[in-house]
């Protein structure tokens, strides 16, 4: 066996281990997908299979054995182990620092004293293969989340590992980047003997994986063929996940209210290498009661749009009106009293000592009046009021973001790639948030690469591309529009969903 895990029990010092008696085996050439809800133990299992636990990150309870080609990963020399295993962490930031794209990809080779010409050839090959040449010379910390992930993947492939372990690699990737990832994994088959991937949504990686194991309630299931499992909705629901081929539901129907945001002729100072502004003549409106799904390629300008509206990025021309008032001259702080911002990584915007203080601060900045504990409890954080926000898990920080956005009373919330919506419990929290916002005459701008999520919850679709919005209208029609077709992305839920719309 290439990889064998035998009766793994893993825990962090609490009474119940996170994972009990997990056993799996991967033969050479195997491609295994491990799925489970947030917090189920996927990341811990991936770190253990890669040898990161216990070699780099020891944990309180580590029982059982993981063997790579028969050798115990816990006792192999680190350098020998990690030259045979490529690992992409769930949070790509955890393995990046302020180096350029080429530096990161070359790093494993340079550290192992690979000759310069060989390093250059390998870096070139990987950058071309993963279509990263446009990013040459960029510092990785200035890249988008999706771009960073592709760079880390290239670094993992650089030393031609025997085993590749990827923890939620499609997070933040647009559909085209996901296809590039799948292509890269197919091509890597020449050198990489086995691949283990943890994901919440199996559909994206189904073309490059053969078998499936599910984690639920601390137990890893037996490995089964993936293809038939995709149609077994009950299987996924039991694991706390959204079924990958769930039937279409009815889209929410709304009658939009008054105009909360109007953007006209927006042109940014930030320009592309060609000199063309990232946003050029962009028009957009948002009305009360709407959930506007904003989609577009990685780097299309979605984040620039959000930052321009918030006043975090200088604007060369155009008008921005909030609640009917011209807001171009407003400071970011004044705009933020009308717009609550929930980024993908909440760590970026937390700065108080307790979760309750974060919510109280949000309330004090706007017109909210609900008491802190009620809001926290609504978003699954009851009893966590005195917890330091940085001690919360990434999932809980996302929940805190929703709580703060609601507590602020801001008329608009911009939610950027809500990762918590990828399992059943998280999706329920997001739907609670969207329902409360829209029912109170507020509106949400939802920026996401998860087209199924946008299809499920958005009441209107805006597609950002070529510096403006080539499509703005009903969601169902959007998937069949010329602008969407130009992206070359598959429509969410396929044709069945389109006809249901």
């Amino acid at each position, binding site marked *: 066996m290439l990889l064998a895990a035998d009766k793994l029990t893993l825990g962090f010092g609490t009474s119940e281990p996170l994972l009990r008696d997990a056993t799996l085996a991967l033969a050479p050439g195997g491609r295994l997908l491990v799925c489970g809800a947030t917090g189920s133990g996927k990341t811990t299992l991936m770190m253990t299979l890669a040898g990161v636990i216990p070699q780099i990150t020891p944990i309180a309870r580590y029982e059982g054995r993981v063997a790579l080609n028969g050798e115990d990963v816990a006792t192999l020399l680190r350098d020998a182990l990690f030259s045979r295993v490529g690992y992409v962490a769930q949070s790509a930031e955890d393995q990046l620092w302020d180096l350029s794209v080429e530096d990161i990809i070359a790093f494993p080779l340079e550290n192992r004293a690979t000759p310069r010409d060989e390093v250059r050839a390998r870096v070139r090959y990987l950058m071309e293969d993963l279509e990263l040449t446009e990013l040459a010379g960029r510092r990785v910390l200035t890249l988008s989340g999706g771009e960073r992930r592709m760079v880390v993947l290239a670094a993992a492939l650089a030393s031609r590992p025997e085993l590749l372990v990827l923890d939620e690699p499609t997070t933040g990737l647009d559909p085209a980047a996901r296809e590039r990832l799948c292509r890269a994994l197919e091509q890597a088959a020449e050198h990489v003997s086995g691949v283990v991937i943890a994901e919440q949504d199996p559909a994206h990686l189904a073309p490059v994986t053969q078998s499936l194991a599910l984690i639920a309630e601390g137990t890893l299931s037996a490995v089964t063929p993936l293809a038939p499992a995709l149609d077994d909705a009950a299987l996924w629901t039991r694991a706390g996940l959204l079924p990958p081929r769930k039937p279409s539901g009815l889209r929410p129907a709304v009658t939009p209210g008054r105009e909360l945001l109007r953007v006209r002729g927006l042109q940014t100072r930030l320009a592309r290498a060609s000199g063309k502004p990232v946003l050029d003549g962009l028009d957009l409106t948002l009305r009360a009661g709407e959930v506007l799904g904003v989609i577009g390629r990685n780097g299309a300008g979605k984040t620039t749009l959000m930052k321009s509206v918030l006043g975090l990025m200088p604007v060369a021309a155009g008008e921005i009106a909030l609640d009917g008032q011209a807001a171009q001259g407003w400071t970011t702080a004044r705009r933020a009293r009308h717009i609550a911002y929930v980024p993908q990584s909440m760590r970026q915007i937390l700065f108080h000592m307790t979760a309750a203080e974060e919510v109280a601060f949000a309330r004090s*900045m706007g017109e909210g009046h609900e008491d802190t504990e009620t809001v926290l409890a609504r978003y699954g954080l009851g009893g966590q009021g005195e917890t330091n926000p940085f001690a919360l898990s990434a999932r809980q920080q996302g929940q805190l973001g929703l709580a703060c956005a609601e507590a602020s009373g801001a008329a608009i919330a911009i939610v950027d790639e809500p990762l918590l919506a990828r399992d059943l419990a998280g999706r329920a929290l997001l739907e609670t948030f969207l329902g409360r916002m829209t029912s109170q005459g507020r509106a949400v701008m939802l920026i996401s690469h998860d087209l199924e999520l946008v299809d499920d919850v958005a009441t209107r679709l805006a597609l950002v591309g070529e510096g403006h919005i080539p499509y703005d209208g009903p969601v169902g029609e959007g998937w069949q529009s010329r602008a969407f077709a130009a992206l070359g992305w598959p429509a969410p839920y396929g044709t069945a969903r389109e006809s249901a719309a």
Partner: protein
Amino acid sequence: MSRLHDLNFFVKLGTAFALMIVAWLAPDWRWGIPFAALVLALLWVTRVPKLGGYLKGAGLLTLMVIVSWMINLLLQGIAPLDALAIAAKMAARLVATTALFYFVMETSTPGAILAACSAARLPAVATLVLSLLFGIIPMLRDEFERIADAQRARGMEIDDVSFLKKLRFALARGVPLLVQAIRTAHAISFSLTLYGFDLSRKRTTWRDVGLMVEPRMTWKDPIR
């Protein structure tokens, strides 16, 4: 970005040391102040990033140096004009020194430093220390600014307020900055281990390193 930014890190470092010695050998303020001004002008001409922020800090430093030296010298009974001349000389030295190393720090990415050290076949530990020493400050400064943006984005008015409030809000950035600093240290340590950094092994580099350090890979002559 000036071509000077791509100079080999050790050339920049050596030049900075040499010019710093000149600044410290200046006999009095008549030489020291013009030399410091010349160094600042050099920073402006070479378009060193975020020069405005540096100048604010340098202004504060100058003020503090002059005030503290004036108090010290006046207490020793030196005439005010003589005391001012000495204080100005000391301030000029410090401004020139900090400006020179600001140039080195701002224009040398950790990647370029790693490359220069690797090409010089320095021991891995020296490579690591130099990269982190000159790389971590801009990284934390960028993080500080990003947190300020986050405060603004949550409705905190930190620009159009009194100095004391600005100071209080700046202090509020300390907690996330500390958390981020720890995370950065962890990420560096994690990536060093994962990617095979070994103190006993000399590294290679993908960059072409000579008087200049190749800043990026180009695709003029693609391999495939």
